[in-house]
């Protein structure tokens, strides 16, 4: 009977400790996960921001970063305008870059459009070259001083979870 009482007492203490430690452990685990979330947030933001800025600077500093080329077929008279952007990925994650170029008349009517996109691995470079094909009539009627270029640039990084899109429109 005496041993039974001791056993009960020990069991009671153990149960109390167990409950206490379970709560305490849960709190500790939650605290660790919460800190891990905050650290993941900070690390992902810093790497994305640093990588994107590095990519932007490296791309703009490249001598042949943006080129525009206009050719015309001497036989058919059709023309092609090629806008090229050389993107250098200097970040930590694979990036997606897309370029959508539209050529509009001064009245806003679309004459031609070109689309190009690709994924660029870290440390690699990729060239975007959307081609705007123009028929002979359009090419001859094209007045570049009055024409409007609408350039849409898409940029995605960090497993396509963070994105940036800009649309530039030069008006005459």
């Amino acid at each position: 009977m005496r041993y039974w009482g001791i056993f009960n007492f020990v069991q009671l203490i153990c149960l109390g400790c167990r409950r206490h430690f379970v709560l305490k452990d849960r709190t500790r685990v939650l605290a660790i996960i919460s800190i891990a979330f905050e650290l993941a947030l900070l690390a992902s933001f810093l790497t994305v921001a640093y990588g994107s800025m590095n990519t932007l600077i490296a791309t703009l500093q490249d001598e042949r970063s943006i080129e525009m080329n206009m050719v015309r077929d001497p036989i058919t008279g059709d023309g092609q305008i090629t806008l090229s952007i050389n993107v250098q990925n200097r970040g930590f994650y694979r990036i997606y870059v897309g370029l959508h170029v539209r050529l509009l008349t001064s009245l806003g009517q679309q004459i031609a459009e070109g689309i190009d996109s690709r994924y660029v691995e870290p440390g690699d470079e990729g060239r975007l070259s959307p081609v705007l094909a123009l028929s002979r009539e359009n090419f001859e009627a094209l007045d570049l001083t009055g024409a409007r270029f609408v350039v849409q640039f898409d940029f995605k990084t960090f497993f396509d979870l963070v994105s940036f899109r800009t649309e530039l429109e030069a008006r005459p």
Partner: protein
Amino acid sequence: MNKVKGLIFPTLILLVLVVVPRVALMLAPVEMVSMIDAMGLVDLDLILNALTISGLSMAMLSAIKNLTEKWTTINLASSIGSTIIWFILSLLLWGAGDPWSFGEIRRTLNVMNLMASLILNLRFFVILQAGASLLGILKNVFVYFSAIDRMRAQSGASGG
């Protein structure tokens, strides 16, 4: 209850959220500040005011939290309040001044004859921040119940 923490943490919060941003803005080149204002990319005044208000309230809540026992409801309320204010502040920062954009910043600029529209999608960070805040609240609730258990165990031991 920790009186030292109750003084140090609110002071640090006030320094980081109220004093440092204002000093940084004063030290920043005037041309840069006026250019940001003119472009309308970010409403600096709004962000500064939001930082000040949230800094003051978070410092107050931190003082309450550290000067009360962990098992009190006011301690739990101040912890949760602090986490919520931090989340709203981060929403404001991820949205560049607009907390209800939930991390999707949209701006249109007109410079000379060039029109530029920008869309910056930072929703992933907002979702991560929301997750961290929820976990923080859950942790505070667990700390509260854990403290209640400990307090009851202590009073039971001293009473029995």
